[in-house]
């Protein structure tokens, strides 16, 4: 209690300073809360994965009508439940396409549908649709696979965790089956008892085997979701690691801030402490008092900062989840991060305070009693040296010398400006790099449209485009190489749909030859002449690498006919590429046209950038506040000096000039160091990303942001400097000087 009243007295003594310190420190402690984002995001994701019984294995197959699924998989011990589903696509009344999933609605066991409005379908032709797709009550007629008209009617709005964020409708299997022309299922979702990664892999391949014994082939690599995870979690993890890095920047800024705050608070009490020492206070008691003061500030910051951190991390986690998953998470708290950031502030304050307190109490009493603000100028050699340096106007000299005199604070401000600029540049560089990478991904592409027909596998006759010189049939399927998910792209050998200029070697010609993305090849140690094992839906296949293609993704390029053979679907493909802006006229029925111009990654990129911006804003405002409070304290502390300057005729602009002259070298140094740190930091982040993804992302430094970063620093410094000078000089000189003695 006594401690609280003691603290309160301190606050009343210098309210602005203490409160800025507490606020800035709180923000720093809060910024450390970004470390909690991955945990927060993952825990909400896992909660919803658990609640809604996310499947562990998803397979897409040809029609399973001829197989009794339950008997077929009964031999596989790990399978708890297998749910046959039918996935199809129809055109909506507005002629957009809509995925429709037919599943057992009377006894849902996997990926359970949550009903937001209306009800679950109970009759043939009824649908429950995801939010923002169709309105309740919408009714329209489409053709079934056999040509018969089917009336579809929206009776509910809702969705599932797995399909969150997708424009999808759910219905019973009969309706979807009729639309797709499938009697059995074409999609299987499975819950298992052992959800470990390896167990899921072997279970998936056992299922594939029993299906293939029954004449059913799987057409995509099975999707496996281990350990109760959410399918989106892997993507979130990448963002999380980035967020973590930015958290480190925030932490560093906080550390500098903590150090300088505690240091200032204690050093400025030199004389007060000296008086108490003179009156008989022991050094030990004085140190304890000073440490307590710093701890009090730190404690107050923790009290404000930890909830602030919880708030920040939850806000950003919500931003991430809403953008990527369309899921609004509940509030989650990461206890280790909370404890960590609290300890960070308390231990840090304690260490810095102990050090500063020792310095203050170790000063000879006579000297300490004499000076007002720490140590007088001219005691250190560096100060005497800089005092000999008599160039520039006298006002500039006072500025430079003061910067040397208060070197701890100058260095702290330099560090803070550096951190702010670095954070700005890292964020801007990540943004430009991501944008450039997305553009680079499309660079070799020559097609204007690629058209898919709905269906799980290779459903287009490869000869379909034979008569059209501007179109080709190809295949894009998922595969795996050395544990990496890759794209396996089938092209005709002399394709005109992609730029075949190679980084090394040549495009495939003979059977068994493939080309591989060179960035990926380099990172998994593949070279020309090597054998590469590619896992696809039909099993493992070996090919010889004959060329390295500048493609920036993870891709294996192969002859479309060979790929069809290897998929056990000879003469088939799944995409029609065209050089024209419209899909070829020979394609009809429900089709999915992707135009190169409209990049489907745009949303994802925008979301990532949004998140970077959010975190960047936190880091930059912590650093900005730190700089501001440092500058404010610096100006405030020198108010007597400035009043003396005014007393002998100095006007406001002279005072401002001194403040600015002191700031310029610090700001310039901070900008320069920040640019270097930003460059190195962003390059390192991108490199770790390349390693984590086995692709060549490249790195674009956002040099365009340099003027902006500089302008922000300069404008901010001028603004704060100006405001502080205004405040300090608006009181009558005599009043300021009265408090000086």
């Amino acid at each position, binding site marked *: 209690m006594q401690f609280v009243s003691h603290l309160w007295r301190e606050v009343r003594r210098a309210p602005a300073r203490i409160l800025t310190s507490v606020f800035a420190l709180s923000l720093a402690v809060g910024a450390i809360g970004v470390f909690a984002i991955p945990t927060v995001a993952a825990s909400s994701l896992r909660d919803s994965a658990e609640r809604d019984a996310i499947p562990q294995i998803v397979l897409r197959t040809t029609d399973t009508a001829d197989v009794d699924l339950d008997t077929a998989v009964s031999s596989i011990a790990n399978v708890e439940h297998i749910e046959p589903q039918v996935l199809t696509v129809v055109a909506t009344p507005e002629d957009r396409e809509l995925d429709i999933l037919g599943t057992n609605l009377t006894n849902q066991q996997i990926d359970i549908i949550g009903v937001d409005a209306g009800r679950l379908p109970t009759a043939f032709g009824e649908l429950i649709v995801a939010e923002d797709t169709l309105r309740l009550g919408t009714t329209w007629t489409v053709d079934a696979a056999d040509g018969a008209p089917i009336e579809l009617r929206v009776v509910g709005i809702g969705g599932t965790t797995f399909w969150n964020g997708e424009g999808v409708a759910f219905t019973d299997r009969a309706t979807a089956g009729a639309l797709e022309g499938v009697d059995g299922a074409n999609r299987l979702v499975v819950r298992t008892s052992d959800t470990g990664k390896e167990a899921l892999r072997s279970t998936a391949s056992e299922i594939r085997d029993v299906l293939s014994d029954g004449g059913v082939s799987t057409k995509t690599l099975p999707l496996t979701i281990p350990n109760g995870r959410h399918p989106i979690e892997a993507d979130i993890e990448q963002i999380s690691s980035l967020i973590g890095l930015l958290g480190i920047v925030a932490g560093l800024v906080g550390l500098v801030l903590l150090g300088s705050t505690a240091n200032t608070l204690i050093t400025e009490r030199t004389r007060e402490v000296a008086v108490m020492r003179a009156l008989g206070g022991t050094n030990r008691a004085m140190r304890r008092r000073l440490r307590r003061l710093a701890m009090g500030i730190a404690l107050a910051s923790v009290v404000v900062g930890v909830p602030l951190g919880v708030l920040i991390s939850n806000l950003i986690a919500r931003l991430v989840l809403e953008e990527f998953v369309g899921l609004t998470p509940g509030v989650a708290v990461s206890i280790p991060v909370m404890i960590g950031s609290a300890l960070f502030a308390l231990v840090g304050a304690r260490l810095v305070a102990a050090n500063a307190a020792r310095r203050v109490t170790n000063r000879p009493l006579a000297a300490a009693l004499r000076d007002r603000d720490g140590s*007088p100028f001219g005691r250190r050699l560096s100060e005497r040296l800089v005092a000999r340096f008599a160039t520039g106007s*006298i006002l500039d000299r*006072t500025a430079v010398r003061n910067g040397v005199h208060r070197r701890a604070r100058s260095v702290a401000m330099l560090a803070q400006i550096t951190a702010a600029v670095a954070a700005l540049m890292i964020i801007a560089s990540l943004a430009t790099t991501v944008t450039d990478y997305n553009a680079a991904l499309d660079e070799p592409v020559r097609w204007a449209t690629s058209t898919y027909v709905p269906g799980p596998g290779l459903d287009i006759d490869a000869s379909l485009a034979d008569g059209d010189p501007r179109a080709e049939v190809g295949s894009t399927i998922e595969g795996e190489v050395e544990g990496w998910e890759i794209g396996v792209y089938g092209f005709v050998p002399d394709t005109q749909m992609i730029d075949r200029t190679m980084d090394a070697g040549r495009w495939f010609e003979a059977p068994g030859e493939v080309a591989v993305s060179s960035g990926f090849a380099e990172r998994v140690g593949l070279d020309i002449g090597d054998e590469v094992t590619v896992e696809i839906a039909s099993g493992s296949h070996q090919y010889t690498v004959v060329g390295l293609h500048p493609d920036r993704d993870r891709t294996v390029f192969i002859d479309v006919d060979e790929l069809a053979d290897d998929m056990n679907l000879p003469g088939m493909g799944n995409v029609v590429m065209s050089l024209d802006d419209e899909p070829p006229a020979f394609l009809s029925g429900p089709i999915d046209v992707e135009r190169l111009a409209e990049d489907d990654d745009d949303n994802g990129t925008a979301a990532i950038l949004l998140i970077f911006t959010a975190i960047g804003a936190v880091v930059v405002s912590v650093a900005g506040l730190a700089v501001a409070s440092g500058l404010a304290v610096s100006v405030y502390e020198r108010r*007597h000096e400035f*009043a003396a300057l005014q*007393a*002998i005729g*100095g006007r*406001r602009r002279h005072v401002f000039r001194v403040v600015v002259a002191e700031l310029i070298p610090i700001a310039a140094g901070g900008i320069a160091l920040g640019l270097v740190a930003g460059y190195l930091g962003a390059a390192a982040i991108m490199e770790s990303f390349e390693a984590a993804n086995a692709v060549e992302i490249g790195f674009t430094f956002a040099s365009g942001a340099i003027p902006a970063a500089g302008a922000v620093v300069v404008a901010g410094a001028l603004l704060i400097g100006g405001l502080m000078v205004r405040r300090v000089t608006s009181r009558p000189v*005599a009043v300021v000087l009265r408090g000086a003695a």
Partner: protein
Amino acid sequence: MALISHESSVTSPLSAPQAPGFTKPHAVRPLVSAHDVSRQWGKGSNAQLGVDRVDLNIGSGELAAIVGPSGSGKSTLGALIAGIDRPTSGSLVVDGERIDQLSTDQLARWRGRNVGIVFQDFHLLPTLSAAENVELAITLSGRSVGRSKRRAETREALSSVGLADKVRRLPNELSGGEQQRVAIARAVVNRPRLIVADEPTGSLDQAAGSTVFELLAGLRRDGTTVVFITHDRALAAEADRRIEMLDGSVSRHSAGGVDVRIPLTADTLVAGVQ
């Protein structure tokens, strides 16, 4: 507004009443002329009066001492005269300028040209050498002086206070008396008409104090008006004019050893009736 106009006091400043036999010629024209000057802090029940309706004139070229007990308003009055504080009411004319009506920056410019201020605790800029502290005052005065002339004037000012050999010292490397002498050099370097010194010897020992006082008193010879605040009766006795303060008001005012009558105002009349 017109009701409380003090214009009359500007156009015809209250002349210092002349005592018989008091014939200092330059004391005839007042350099400082305060009329009904008050300085108040805070408002309402918190209000604190530092200076309470003071009327006084200080003649040009005089050495004037402000004396009085602690808390009587000496420093406050000195600050008002020096233009580092502003009266809350009343008019204050110094060397023909209504300084109570100047803006903050105008006032600063005015100080730079017309006043030299000496404080009890010196207030030298700690990062500047003795010479730089003095030179800064020239720069801020706005006089257009070439660099070499500036240097020369600086040296001359420092020599005149006996510090020719310590021009490159930092304040930290000077004794208190030396620092105060630098402050005097800084105050006189622009040859201002007025010097205001608040307990200039208060922080100094006897010897250093009398050196400083001699320097200030000697400025009279060039026609500079020196207003100084002191607790030292001996020093006050050497002044041409003594202004005694009590509770914010001038309780006694004498020039050349003769009392100056406090002008009759409505308030004093009322007080007399009571």
